């Protein structure tokens, strides 16, 4: 299989897989148990917490493990029901794990303003500032968008939030391992992560929570994760997340240039083969290896089927809406017309991809377009 859908999910890093096998098989003790087996498990979890903290530039006691990125977002957003100020400033291009949560919070008196983006998919900090009201209790803007890869000016927005004394959250699920993340430099109060986006396991995530910040748990029970997330810890998953985070930032410069070379080569090849193609998003401030590209006249559902036959995995719009030729709301928000919108693919390269893969992808795309053209 030729896999170019790393923004949807990534394969496990081999070292992560080995570690998880070992932890699952040998260190199965309950981390809350005081015997040696439990202690070992607890040690593994705390090691992972240290690895994660180091990867994002914070202290270990500022990392809470969750059951994924969506849960991390929910932990922050649901806390609003206890706040006096229940208005949220967010953006129109947030993931459903933010926007749908906010919609659900409506019945608890939470309201929100979603600021627009420009045609490159960028939020303007001035718009965020303008959207702040006396009732605003939270700003939540993603660090990088999942469909476009546009990297948002989070440090600027966090500075605005600080000026107003408003809590600031960023969904950084797409960013870790692709761009350097420093929690202090960003200046946010909390930040969500998901292990399977950076070659870790599915079903594990983390929330960075600035020291001093108080949140209420969603899952109540035992005192795990400082009583913020009850339930016996997923030791193999958490250990896997820790190592994956460490590996993801270790060679980040090399990873970036690897992904950039693949993306550049692909863009050159595809524009030569298909001059009509349009690359969407921001020319510079975007995630390495992520290309959002429209092929006017070629509906993405058809392209996807043809590519799937050739063993090529890409995505149309966001992965959640496959099989559906509804225009992507994110592309619509960027002002892209519906007829181009539904002809758009997201190609996201990973570290295991190489130039042969890029060539295969270009070939597969051009021959798919030929096949579609000849069938109609």
């Amino acid at each position, binding site marked *: 299989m030729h896999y170019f859908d790393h923004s949807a999910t990534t394969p496990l890093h081999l070292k992560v897989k080995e570690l998880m096998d070992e932890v699952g098989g040998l260190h199965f003790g309950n981390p809350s148990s005081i015997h040696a087996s439990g202690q070992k498990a607890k040690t593994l979890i705390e090691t992972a917490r240290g690895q994660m903290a180091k990867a994002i530039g914070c202290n270990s006691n500022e990392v809470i493990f969750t059951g994924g990125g969506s849960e991390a977002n929910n932990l922050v957003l649901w806390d609003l029901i206890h706040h006096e100020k229940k208005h949220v400033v967010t953006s129109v291009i947030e993931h459903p794990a933010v926007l749908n949560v906010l919609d659900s919070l409506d019945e608890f008196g939470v309201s929100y303003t979603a600021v627009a983006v420009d045609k490159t998919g960028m939020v303007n900090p001035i718009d965020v500032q303008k959207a702040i009201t006396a009732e605003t209790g939270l700003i939540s803007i993603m660090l990088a968008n999942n469909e476009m890869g546009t990297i948002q000016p989070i440090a600027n927005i966090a500075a605005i939030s600080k000026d107003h004394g408003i809590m600031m959250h960023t969904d950084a699920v797409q960013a870790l391992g692709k761009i350097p993340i420093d929690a202090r430099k960003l200046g946010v109060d909390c930040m969500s992560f998901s292990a399977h986006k950076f070659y870790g396991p599915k079903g594990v995530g983390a929330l960075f929570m600035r020291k001093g910040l108080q949140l209420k748990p969603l899952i109540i029970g035992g005192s795990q994760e400082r009583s913020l997330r009850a339930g016996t810890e997923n030791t193999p998953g958490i250990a896997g997340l820790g190592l994956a985070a460490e590996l993801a930032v270790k060679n980040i410069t090399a990873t970036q240039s690897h992904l950039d070379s693949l993306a550049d080569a692909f863009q050159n090849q595809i524009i030569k083969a298909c001059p009509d193609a349009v690359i969407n998003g921001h020319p510079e401030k975007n995630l390495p290896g992520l290309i959002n590209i429209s092929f006017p006249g070629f509906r993405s559902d058809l392209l996807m089927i043809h590519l799937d036959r050739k063993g090529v995995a890409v995505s149309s719009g966001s992965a959640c809406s496959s*099989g559906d030729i509804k225009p992507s709301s994110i592309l619509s928000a960027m002002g892209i017309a519906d007829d181009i919108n539904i002809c758009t693919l997201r190609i996201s390269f990973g570290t295991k991809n190489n130039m042969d893969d890029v060539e295969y992808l270009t070939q597969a795309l051009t021959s798919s377009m030929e*096949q579609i053209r000849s*069938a109609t």
Partner: protein
Amino acid sequence: MSERIIVGMSGGVDSAVAALLLKEQGFDVECIFMKNWEEDSESCTAEEDYKDALLVCDHLGLKLHTVNFSKEYKQNVFDHFLKEYAAGRTPNPDTLCNKEIKFNVFLHYALELGAGRIATGHYARIEKNNGTIQLRKGIDKNKDQSYFLFMLNQQQLEKTIFPIGAMSKKDVRTLAKEKGLPNYDRKDSTGVCFIGERNFTEFLHQYFKPDPGDMVTVDGKTVSKHDGLMFYTLGQRQGLGIGGGHGEKEEPWYVVDKNLENNQLIVAQGHDHPGLFHSQLTVEDLHWVANEVPSVRKLTAKIRYRQKDQLCSFELNNDSADVYFVEPQFAVTPGQAAVFYDGDNCLGGGTIEKRN
């Protein structure tokens, strides 16, 4: 390379066996799951159906694609369905779905994807006879679905395979079990696809406001109230709520007619009430499968799915026809299809416009 066949895979056992048979016959088989209805969370079974389709295709080693034709379904099938109900008729969305979605949008989509033909799990057969393609009843008389397919034309039939048309449902299930298909014992779907197992009247209530009026006997005596004419079907017996004391006999009440002008539901007592029977009706939007008016010695028709064949004759006027039955027919229902047969050859049909 062998011919590519794209199978409309519903998640049910019939389309699964259709795909299995084609694969065994050496065709290049791919499957498409059609999503024709946007979930309204409550009891839409699309997610469940998709899961079964996925398991079947995984078992058979076939590619599965998903397409969403809900926009087309809404425009070409559902809006018409609502319009008919609003006009006091009882439409048949399944015949229209076959015409507009499965054998139109889906067929074209499949051809676009390089398919030579499409296949579905319908119980019907396609036979070539002197250059004409005939639509024939399925061998399983209990399951025959030709009634729902009478709107197909020569071009559509030429591009279609019904792999299980010559099998009985029992044999289909046996084969499915033998081949280890994961859905071999899944229960048959009933009712209109987008309503599923939901209560039909409740579903209609989502789209129509109550419009109460009188329930009146054929003799003009008011016996009760109705909630709105669209919530009733001719021949309906249950749910009329006519209390005791109105009838002279102990027999049940039936809906005999709708008077749209006065918003009256006309009812009568007893299954054999003459008001419930008509031997003459008019069909409109006539369609002939072979694209020519048939001349048949022993013409029969069905005015509802699974009805026994009824001897009849017809008189053509342009796009409509008057149909004369040998035996009076119970609850002839405008909006439903009248489908003509010559033995097991499905000739075509039309929509019942009125009874005479």
